[in-house]
């Protein structure tokens, strides 16, 4: 059971996820790239209730870690700290923001698989990447609400099931897409990315194999 969520990145996405997680009743530890004091005021005002920490502490104390740093900085996260942890990868490769990163342009796999190579032992699940950060709070709905949107997940089934419950408590219907490789189906450029879909619509976009398994 997840009760404490550690968020790496106190930017737009990290802050929006922090508020969403607090609303959902989780304990939230959040970190930027530097000491906790650097983000103390930000956390007090922008994500009140969350606890500012160093990245190392936020990871060590968390049941689930969320990577919300710019993709071009993912290597600044210490891989040793993530070994054995459940980790959500929210990061996207966005050329206009990240520049040309051959590591991603030259690799046909999902960006999360590339990232996963750098974090051996981390139990990586790709999700929360295809929703705009300002929609996360505005679109959250209780379970059963006909307007509730779906969020796709990719990763090993056991870990994804743990993450799915978190997504559900965040206010979205989790839709399991398959192993990490299946995450390519909801990256930038896909019909799912940046759109708004109910769980049913997501299943249709993800294709018959996923729909049948579900």
């Amino acid at each position: 059971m997840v009760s404490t969520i550690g968020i790496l990145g106190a930017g737009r996405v990290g802050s929006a996820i922090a508020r969403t997680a607090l609303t959902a009743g989780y304990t939230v530890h959040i970190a930027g790239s530097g000491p906790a004091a650097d983000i103390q005021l930000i956390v007090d005002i922008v994500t009140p209730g969350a606890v500012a920490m160093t990245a190392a502490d936020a990871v060590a104390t968390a049941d689930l870690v969320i990577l919300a740093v710019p993709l071009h900085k993912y290597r600044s996260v210490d891989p040793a700290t993530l070994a054995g942890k459940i980790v959500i990868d929210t990061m996207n490769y966005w050329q206009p923001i990240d520049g040309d990163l051959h590591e991603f342009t030259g690799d046909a796999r999902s960006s999360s698989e590339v990232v996963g190579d750098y974090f051996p032992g981390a139990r990586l699940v790709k999700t929360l990447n295809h929703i705009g950060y300002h929609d996360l709070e505005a679109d959250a709905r209780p379970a059963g609400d006909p307007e509730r949107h779906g969020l796709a997940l990719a990763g090993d089934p056991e870990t994804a099931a743990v993450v799915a419950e978190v997504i559900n408590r965040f206010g979205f219907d989790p839709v399991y897409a398959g192993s990490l490789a299946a995450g390519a189906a909801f990256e930038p450029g896909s019909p799912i990315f940046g759109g708004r879909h109910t769980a049913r619509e997501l299943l249709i976009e993800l294709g018959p194999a996923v729909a049948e398994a579900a």
Partner: protein
Amino acid sequence: MEIGAYSFGDTPLNPDGSPRSTAEGIRNLFDAIVAADRAGLDYFGVGEHHTVSMPASSPGALIAAAAAATDRIILGSAASIISTDDPVRVFQQLATADAISGGGRVEITAGRGSSVETFPLFGYDLRDYDTLYAEKLELLMRINGSPTAEVTWSGSVRPAIDNLAVVPRPVNGRLPIWLATGGNAASSARAGRLGLPVSYGIIGGEPHRFAPLAELYRRSAAQAGHTGENIKVSVATLGLVAPTKKEALERFHPGWHNLNVEMGRLRGWPAPDRRQFEAQAQAPGAYYVGDPDDVAERIAHLHGHLGHMRHFLQSDVGGLPHEHLLESIELLATEVKPRVARLLAAK
């Protein structure tokens, strides 16, 4: 409350959708600024953008021309992408425009741009993104704050300056320098720490959700000991005013659609969705597209959350017909501005 407009330039389209000349886009922008001054608009912000559809790459040159052709309106870059430019030149160009304007009408808004097209264009390395921004902002402030023409500065991103004159000096001693941000909390804290006014570019979501950022900005300023009239907030959003809301939606939608198709190609977004457009154009959405009453009410409502002192709209995107831009500017100045003033006075 000051009411204004801003633009990145908008290259007009032929009936078949192909672009006309970028020069025409610049000429239209110049004409719009002159019209805004005549109509009584408070502020006009220019560029910087470097695409064929949005060609306002050189705010300093455009603002200098506009300074000569206008009498009252405040002119500013919106924003100067300071990371990939030389702060010495940015300052000199805007200070030159300030001299031409008669003084006190020219501002610099420093930002880092929401995309990174200037990095390859000017030969910078994206890995230096944060350092470039921090150091160049510091240099710009050093030049502007210097009590004499001579400036001394050293850093890692550009050659040191050892007691060299940076001229002309602004007519009133200094130019207002704003910090532009799209909603990153660290930028709000930075603006407060530096004691700079902050300009929020709110291009989506629900603008009132910026309230904690504005509070963070003000608290950061107070903590650093900055008080007074320099601690203030402005807001830039998309929007268009027309005689009726229906007309405003019909006029703005095609250009919005074109813009989102272009952005979507770059960023992997899906085809723009008309329903989403309509939703964003209603309170509490981010598009201030409507008749004068609607737009004025929403600006006044946002003021309750952010306490901003200036709200300015970008209307000319994706090939908006020029006459629609001009009518929107006229309505902003003559209809929206007095309504906002009345609404705020009644609060």
